[in-house]
């Protein structure tokens, strides 16, 4: 079994159809295939081979426009995203409001592995508070599980994909068990500089957590922990782990990694799953709907072969939607299933984002050295004001973490742009000296905060607009609450305080929340839309992503998240997907599905 055509797939029978191949689809298919289920994966985009397609080590002068972003490659020419970005040709989405503050932007990719190929690899666990936010402050929804329910799956995912970090034991910032995390990379000057000066204003700094192999995975120890009692899976995984190299501390992760030193579904989940012989993948398969059997269960799905335009129907015992939160919502709405609660499309959340950059004279003319490291988040600041917040001292209810950086990064188009605010505007030999002096003296500080689900943020089917396949598209409604706006203002004020402590200067003053906050969707942490819960009238799925209305239909992507902690959702999505897949396996074993 392997990559097959749509006509081949029509002839086969499967236990499970998985729609989507990113973090959720990859993890779901991996767990199922490794444990013996026969899986058909449908991916809307094309096949993608990181080993041969990744631009490792290329510099920006080798790219058109020196690598600058364009509407066709919004994160720059070398970014791994294929046929995606804020706009996908022929596949629009709409906003209900013309007001930019009430619009939502949706980043999609149409490629095997989806957005995991380019993501930031930041991998933070939700803490105990994050599962019971309503109990804690009366807002939003509690999860139908505790931290302890998901912790074993966080452990497994971290061991499988490889996450570096340290155990600092800070409030609501869980440790991993011994032997799970890889060593954190050594701090950069910018890390230690931030830590020293942020401490002056009470802001802590600890090792970051990212899915990058700072050392190779322990292929002798880990497979038995991940697949106990399953010799075949252990052997396959041990062999595959030996094919993953450690990081070479060069070339940006956003391009993907041909040596498999960071996590992307295409380099970590799919190769061993394919090696089991239990996984078939059809690419260019755009799923339109989940089909219902007479008994009310899911029969399978209908998809359109992008290359031929032909419609195909495939069947399985279980259907899993893992198409990304909002694409799964769209499939549910277009299918007219699993929505007796009326909650499909509701409670969409993104992450609150705001930032401030500064220039720090103390960092000018630093001794030259290689500062690439692992390309991001050697250190970071977890939320540190839980007690003040709970006491009502902050004026907003949920926290944020700080990501920051500085130093001499791989030069891109902006490398010596806009220096006028520092040097007045020079040219000639003076300009060259200025460029050397200022490069590496900038610090960027950015916040990533929790948004609370609200009734004003939701998606529905646009009544008239369809995509090029004739499938109705999503129309978004969006409105931040005072909590997000207050949080964004607090971020910029804090960043200004930290830059002041560094003796830095910034080109603009901290702004009010509605000016500081990035547009909805822009942080690309969109979750919700088919939330999990304990009450079938108020939620779409149970804690396993199993739809209340259709017992053999599961959702394993971010759609089921009923809160969106500041921890960046991908690691949590993978942990949930593994837990869901385990549940599917036990249901199939017990012949309940």
């Amino acid at each position, binding site marked *: 079994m392997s990559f097959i055509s749509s006509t081949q797939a029509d002839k086969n029978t499967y236990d499970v159809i998985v729609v989507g191949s990113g973090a959720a689809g990859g993890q779901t298919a991996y767990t199922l295939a490794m444990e013996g289920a026969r899986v058909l994966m449908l991916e809307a985009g094309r096949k993608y081979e990181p080993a041969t397609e990744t631009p490792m080590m290329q510099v920006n002068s080798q790219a058109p426009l020196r690598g600058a972003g364009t509407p066709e490659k919004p994160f720059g020419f070398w970014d791994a995203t294929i046929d995606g970005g804020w706009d996908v040709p022929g596949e629009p989405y709409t906003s209900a409001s013309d007001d930019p503050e009430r619009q939502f932007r949706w980043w999609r990719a149409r490629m095997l592995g989806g957005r995991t190929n380019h993501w930031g690899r930041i991998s933070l666990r939700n803490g105990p508070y994050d599962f019971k936010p309503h109990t804690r402050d009366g807002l939003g929804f509690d999860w139908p599980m505790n931290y302890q329910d998901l912790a074993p799956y966080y452990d497994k995912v971290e061991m499988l994909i490889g996450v570096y970090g340290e155990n600092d034991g800070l409030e609501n910032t869980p440790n991993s068990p011994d032997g799970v995390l890889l060593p954190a990379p050594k701090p950069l000057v910018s890390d230690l500089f931030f830590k020293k000066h942020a401490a002056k204003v009470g802001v802590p700094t600890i090792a970051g957590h990212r899915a990058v192999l700072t050392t190779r995975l322990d292929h002798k120890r880990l497979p038995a922990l991940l697949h106990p009692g399953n010799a075949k899976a252990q052997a396959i995984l041990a062999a595959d782990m030996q094919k993953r190299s450690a990081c070479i501390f060069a070339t940006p992760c956003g391009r993907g990694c041909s040596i498999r030193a960071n996590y992307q579904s295409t380099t970590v989940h799919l190769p061993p799953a394919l090696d089991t012989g239990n996984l078939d993948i059809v690419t260019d398969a755009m799923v339109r709907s989940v089909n219902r059997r007479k008994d009310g269960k899911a029969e399978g799905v209908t998809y359109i072969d992008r290359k031929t335009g032909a419609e195909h129907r495939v069947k399985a015992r279980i259907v899993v939607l893992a198409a990304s939160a909002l694409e799964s919502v769209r499939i549910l709405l277009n299918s007219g299933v699993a929505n007796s609660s009326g909650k499909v499309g509701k409670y969409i959340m993104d992450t609150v984002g705001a930032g401030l950059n500064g220039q720090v004279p103390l960092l000018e003319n630093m001794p030259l050295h290689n500062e690439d490291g692992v390309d991001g988040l050697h250190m970071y600041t977890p939320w540190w004001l839980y007690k003040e917040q709970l006491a009502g001292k902050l004026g907003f209810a949920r926290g944020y973490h700080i990501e920051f950086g500085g130093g001499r990064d*791989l030069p891109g188009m902006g490398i010596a742009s806009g220096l006028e605010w520092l040097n007045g*505007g020079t040219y000639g030999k003076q300009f*060259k000296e200025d460029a*050397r002096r200022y490069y*590496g003296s900038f610090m960027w500080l950015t916040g990533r905060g929790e948004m609370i689900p609200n009734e004003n943020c939701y998606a529905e089917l646009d009544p008239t607009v369809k995509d090029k396949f004739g499938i109705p598209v999503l129309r978004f409604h969006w409105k931040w609450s005072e909590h997000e706006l207050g949080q964004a203002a607090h971020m910029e004020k804090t960043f200004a305080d930290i830059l002041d402590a560094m003796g830095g200067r910034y080109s603009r003053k901290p702004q009010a929340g509605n000016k500081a906050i990035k547009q909805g969707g822009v942080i690309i942490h969109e979750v919700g839309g088919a939330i999990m819960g304990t009450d079938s009238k108020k939620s779409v799925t149970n804690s396993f992503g199993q739809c209340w209305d259709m017992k053999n239909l599961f959702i394993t992507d971010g759609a089921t998240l009923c809160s969106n902690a500041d921890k960046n959702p991908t690691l949590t999505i993978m942990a949930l997907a593994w837990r869901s897949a385990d549940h599917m396996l036990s249901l199939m074993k017990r012949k309940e599905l």
Partner: protein
Amino acid sequence: MDRRTTIKWMFAAAATVPSLRFGIGSALAGDAAARDVAANQAGYGTDPDLVKEWKPGGPWPLTLTANARATTRALCDLIIPADDVSPAASAVGVVDFIDEWISAPYPQQRGDRPTVLNGLLWIEAESQKRFGQAFPALSDAQRAQIADDICSPAKSKAEFADAVKFFSKFRDLTAGGFYTTPVGMNDIGYRGNVPLTSFEGPPLEALKKAGLA
């Protein structure tokens, strides 16, 4: 450049200068410095080959005229001249890069195009007005006299406001074009993009300089 072409081009340039406006009416003026970009000019698409070799003029045609390229060369070398550390901007392909940039079919570059083209025409006209010669033919001191009037947003006179905006944009493009090349990266002090078997963190002297050791 042949003399007749030069004169024709200079007249075209001079004619546009008194009413220099970036934006409105600029497309006509800009055409004197470059061929049109086709209205239906495609970009590199949403799935370009990321491992092939890309060069300016590959994904879309370059459009600057020979004269405009000569002005571009002189101006980018005024901004980034050769010094003890590295060569001038034009020596590492910055002229081709600026041509690629202003010829590209994307919104950002289409927006920059009239700014750059009208600015190049203004530079030429100003050069003729002050010194009776094309900008590339001026002495260093003569070029500096023009540049000094337009290099500083804070200090330049109001009458040069449009030219100042042009110069800032052109300086950003020149710097981006230069410092992204291996030569430019080495000059500015980038020491990364080297495969390592381990990452040892910053040297002690760097920590000391930043007050961290």
